[in-house]
């Protein structure tokens, strides 16, 4: 079932075109990543989905409704980039206050415990660390038991451990049946978490696929490198249909190919009783796919 449908979404601010015709569909129960460099239009797109902005043109439907439909405020939880609570509001107070907004809120105590905030209930927002603020923000987004959670740059500013903890949490959220829309510019995050990813660049979707699919799409293949224990004839390898090319760098053999390259090369070497020392397998990652798709690195800002 499609829960979010965006067709030809366009939005400009003055002379700046933020979104120039984005179309995509998010299915129920998936973690859908929106990946792109800064300023690509990711945030504007999700803000239109969250009903915070009105598109210039195009249509957006969320659970079959107009994004501005007040009924959606109960069904969609949003974690916004750069939104702070009052400095002197304590964690417990924020959770209690936001609980009062929803007709059937989740148990905020349990949510706080799941997010590791149970020891911080009496702490005021201004005194929380960056990671704790982020986790509180996620807790508030989940308080209403939403069917869709929109999380914008949720691990930006977190240390690596906190980031990994947050990923586990997002996985757990999805396991409850919540559809997650995750805006990010971290490759590793997108690759680890997302079922499907839309790569957005300069206001348009350049690709929608699974992380593996995106990688496959742009990478010609794989590369295996090793130092053979005994001399080896190139022909042994070049006859294999998976192998495209063999090159040598001194004692090192470099094999470019595709498909089950690693397995067939390993099997051939084994058959000739050759051991591959210092075996390295190089495979293009999402990082490289992203650079090829957008023509630049996500981390360049």
């Amino acid at each position, binding site marked *: 079932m499609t829960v979010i449908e965006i067709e030809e979404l366009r939005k400009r601010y003055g002379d700046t075109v933020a979104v120039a015709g984005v179309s995509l569909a998010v299915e129920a129960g998936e973690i859908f990543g929106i990946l792109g460099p800064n300023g690509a239009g990711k945030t504007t797109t999700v803000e239109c989905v*969250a*009903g*915070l902005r009105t598109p210039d043109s195009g249509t957006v439907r969320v659970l079959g409704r107009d994004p501005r439909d*007040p009924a959606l*405020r*109960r069904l*969609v*939880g*949003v974690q*916004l980039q*750069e*939104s*702070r*609570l*009052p400095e*002197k*509001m304590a964690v417990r*107070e924020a959770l*209690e*206050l*936001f609980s*009062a*907004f*929803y*007709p059937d809120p989740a148990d905020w105590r349990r949510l706080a415990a799941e997010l590791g905030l149970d020891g911080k209930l009496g702490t005021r927002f201004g005194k929380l660390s960056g990671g704790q603020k982020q986790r509180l923000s996620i807790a*508030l987004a989940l308080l*209403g038991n939403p069917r869709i959670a929109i999380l914008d740059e949720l691990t930006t500013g977190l240390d690596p451990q906190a980031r990994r903890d947050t990923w586990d949490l997002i996985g757990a959220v999805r396991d409850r049946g919540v559809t997650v829309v995750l805006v990010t510019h971290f490759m590793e995050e997108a690759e680890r978490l997302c079922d499907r990813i839309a790569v957005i660049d300069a206001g348009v979707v350049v690709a929608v696929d699974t992380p593996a699919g995106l990688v496959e799409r742009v990478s010609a293949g794989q590369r295996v490198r090793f130092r053979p224990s005994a001399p080896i004839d190139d022909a042994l390898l070049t006859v294999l249909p998976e192998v495209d090319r063999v090159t040598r760098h001194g004692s090192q053999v470099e094999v470019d190919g595709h498909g089950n390259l690693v397995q067939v090369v390993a099997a051939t070497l084994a058959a000739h009783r050759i051991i591959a020392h210092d075996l390295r397998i190089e495979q293009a990652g999402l990082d490289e796919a992203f650079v090829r798709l957008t023509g630049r690195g996500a981390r360049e800002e």
Partner: protein
Amino acid sequence: MSVFVQLTRSELRLFRREPQIVFFSLAFPSILVLIVGSIPAFREADDAIGGLRVIDLYVGIATVLTLATLALQSAPMVLAGYRESGFLRRLATTPARPIALLGAQVAMCLLTALASVSLVLIVGRVVFGVALPRQPAAFLLAFLLTAGAAFAIGLFIAALAPSGKAANAIGTLLFFPAMFFAGLWTPREAFPGFLRDIADLTPLGAGERAVHEATSGSWPAWGALAVLGAYVVVFGVAAARLFRWE
């Protein structure tokens, strides 16, 4: 419990954590009455102000001062700060509407003002024998209309100011002339005629006039009520038009 009540409780709690604002809105007006009343000459009937004592006037002035502090200095700072920090936007993504937070802030201020003004009236009555308002209904009307004018201007400031700090600066800049016309430094009743005419057209001057008249037992002049009403409408509409949520 309703969202509005919860938000108002939350605003009250946050307000209590700002000792400076609590002092100036809740305690200072009464302290001002105590200071003015401690000067012997101000406790004696003065023909220049129609046979009243200066201290009799300052109870009304302290009432207006309470509203000015909350409406011009505190509320715009808090609300523009909520916009600046993205809290209003955050609320817009929940079933609670951001306008409920504006209402809660104003409700919180009005409750605080009621407490502060009650304290002013009690201090005036108990310590200096200042008569309680002889027209309680008229006093309440004058109080509410003055509050309405002051908060309409406060919301207008919050609508224009880009940040909490800027709102506080604008509010403070406005506070001093506004309170001058309300007679904080020299009672309006002692103003020369032309200055009093000007004062009667300012929001807090008109407010002080209405409060004073209600206190001394007459129904406030239509002129004062009309001036206050005009401020409520003009600045209220402007604030509603201009207020941005993000």
